[in-house]
């Protein structure tokens, strides 16, 4: 789960990392009031779009306003803006900071090493990938031993390797506490700055939390439900409420399968058949009647879906049990779109017989994954033409 900049800022503040004074608002008039409280009429204010994507500055999502009245106008311009497909629903107003020097620091997961590394550079403010490409020697990468973490010694090693001033070291230790105590997978500060009065301040931050750690992070509360303002968000929220592993995509073939790898593969095969998948939905190894019914109801409620493809490989749960589940699910919900089922693996023949003995006018079977995807693609494109 990625945090918004303002959420990262609050976390940093809680762990004693200096951050600019700031407030978050979602209307122009609230922006004006917040700007007044932040002293915008004396020294201006920075208005920053809150979206979970990079490149806000280039997209016009970060602007300086000279006073509170200007802040209102700027906030109105930024609110509702689309930045790389993300709609801006809120802006953060922050007190401007007199920057003397800009640095880059982050802790990231290095999958290859199976652990976290510190990345640091005395050249902050730019995209770190660009710095690393142009001048790799300017970027230090230091592995962190998980049993000891970032000690004073390790922090000193990082600052020395990156050519950062020694007073960045205490900030590195605090940011490690954020990573460790908050079960974060990424903590990035870019830029970390030295201000005119000598303080080290985190001017922008990015934090990704580990969804797997939710059970021990009571403070996180419930999973932030996706914005329900659009169809994508509504479907994903509905699926999440049912405990389903669902991702909305752009196509017209609704896909349900068991196992993340098999479902990803199914999407690719549908794509190869000349149609586009409408969603990713992994109902897991169990594939019980209730989960199948829940999955079908979410996918059927997607207006983009023209046909369904149910692709199940019977492993731990054999195909006869999956077929019983499909039959029961079709008793619970109304199938309104053509559906192609492929059952393969353990007890496949018995599973297929069960579906034949409980026929449904909109249900067809195919015995192979490729054949089933081909048929579902045909049904999606032909109904698209008919409509």
């Amino acid at each position, binding site marked *: 789960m990625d945090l918004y900049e303002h959420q990262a800022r609050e976390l940093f503040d809680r762990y004693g990392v200096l951050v600019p004074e700031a407030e978050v608002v979602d209307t122009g008039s609230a922006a004006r009031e917040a700007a007044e409280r932040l002293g915008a009429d004396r020294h201006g204010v920075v208005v920053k779009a809150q979206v979970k994507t990079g490149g806000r500055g280039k997209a016009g999502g970060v602007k300086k306003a000279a006073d509170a009245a200007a802040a209102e106008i700027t906030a109105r311009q930024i609110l509702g803006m689309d930045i790389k497909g993300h709609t801006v629903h809120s802006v953060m107003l922050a007190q401007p900071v007199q920057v003397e020097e800009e640095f880059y620091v982050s802790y990231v*997961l290095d*999958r*290859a090493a*199976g*652990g*976290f590394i510190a990345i640091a550079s005395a050249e902050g403010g730019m995209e770190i990938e660009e710095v690393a490409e142009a001048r790799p020697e300017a970027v230090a990468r230091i592995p962190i*031993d*998980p*049993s000891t973490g970032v000690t004073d010694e390790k922090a000193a090693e990082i600052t020395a390797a990156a050519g950062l001033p020694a007073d960045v070291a205490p900030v590195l230790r605090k940011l490690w506490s954020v990573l*460790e105590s908050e*079960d974060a*997978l990424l903590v990035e500060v870019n830029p970390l700055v030295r201000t005119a009065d000598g303080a080290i301040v985190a001017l922008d931050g990015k934090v990704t939390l*580990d*969804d*797997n*750690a939710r*059970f*021990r992070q009571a403070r996180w509360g419930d999973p932030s439900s996706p914005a329900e303002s659009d169809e994508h968000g509504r479907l994903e929220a509905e699926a999440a409420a049912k405990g389903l*592993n669902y*991702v909305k*995509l752009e196509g017209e073939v609704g896909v349900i*399968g*068991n*196992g*993340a*790898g*098999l*479902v*990803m*593969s199914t*999407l*690719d*095969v*549908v*794509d*190869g058949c000349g149609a*586009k*998948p409408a969603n*990713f939905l*992994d109902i897991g*190894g169990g594939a019980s009647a209730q989960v199948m019914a829940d999955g079908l109801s979410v996918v059927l409620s997607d207006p983009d879906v023209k046909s369904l493809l149910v692709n199940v*490989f019977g*492993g*731990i749960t054999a195909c006869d049990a999956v077929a019983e589940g499909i039959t029961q699910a079709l008793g619970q919900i109304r199938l309104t779109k053509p559906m192609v089922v492929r059952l*393969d*693996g*353990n007890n496949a023949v018995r599973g297929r017989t069960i579906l034949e003995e409980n026929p449904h006018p909109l249900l067809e079977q195919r015995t*192979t*994954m*490729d054949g089933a995807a081909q048929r579902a693609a045909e049904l999606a494109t032909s109904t698209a033409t008919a409509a």
Partner: protein
Amino acid sequence: MAIFLSKESKVIVQGMTGAEGMKHTRRMLASGTDIVGGVNPRKAGQEVDVDGRSIPVFGSVQEAREATEADVSVLFVPPAFSKAAVQEAADAGIGLAVVITEGIPVHDAVAFRAYAQERGTRVIGPNCPGLISPGLSNAGIIPSDIAPEPGRIGLVSKSGTLTYQLMYELRDIGFSSCVGIGGDPVIGTTHIDALAAFEADPETDLIVMIGEIGGDAEERAAAFIKENVTKPVIGYVAGFTAPEGKTMGHAGAIVSGSSGTARAKKEALEAAGVRVGTTPTETARLVLDRLT
């Protein structure tokens, strides 16, 4: 001979007495695994009857190891307790810890991976189906009846169901070992570890490698294959249609910016001389073409 797991492997199950643990202990026994005990501190000293066989429950991995000389542990322990359980197995000198559990926090996986490595314990997983050496032993949840006869293909995969799919399509040829390494971002055993073991295994003639979006494990495996693997490798990569920034079921399956894409992985593998199928079925056909 198979890799990592053999006829001689003595297997214990941590979390055996839970629902999943019991179900899969039964299945593992039925597929010929030498299960010598379970571990549960609250049920120490009890015996559990599994289809007519009496399996002792020990209070700790150490006790189980002393009593049975177990060298493999399969873990069905809830996420909150998995770190301690893996560390306990490593402390007891277990050589192979197979972590089936899904949903373990990454910080815990990082910690137990390093801890086990320092103590010479190989970890497979977490969030994996385990591994099977057909006809010899089965440590995890891979259904042994998909491809019951041993053969000469080695398979390594991030995905459980794609493993089953490929095992099914190639069941007439059979496998030396199939290793599900898991779909989490931090795992104990990588594609490269399995590739190296299959390369060294005289009973493996060809290797099937299944990857998916996220990270660069497949790219690193491709570089390894180019330098170190003489046996034919057939590949498959899932997730060409996955959108950027969305986790596709597995915690590690995410395209971040331009990194972790299926296309980059396929290209890296092909550049290393690996034939890569566009579907699981075509991948199986490439294997058959190569072997016949």
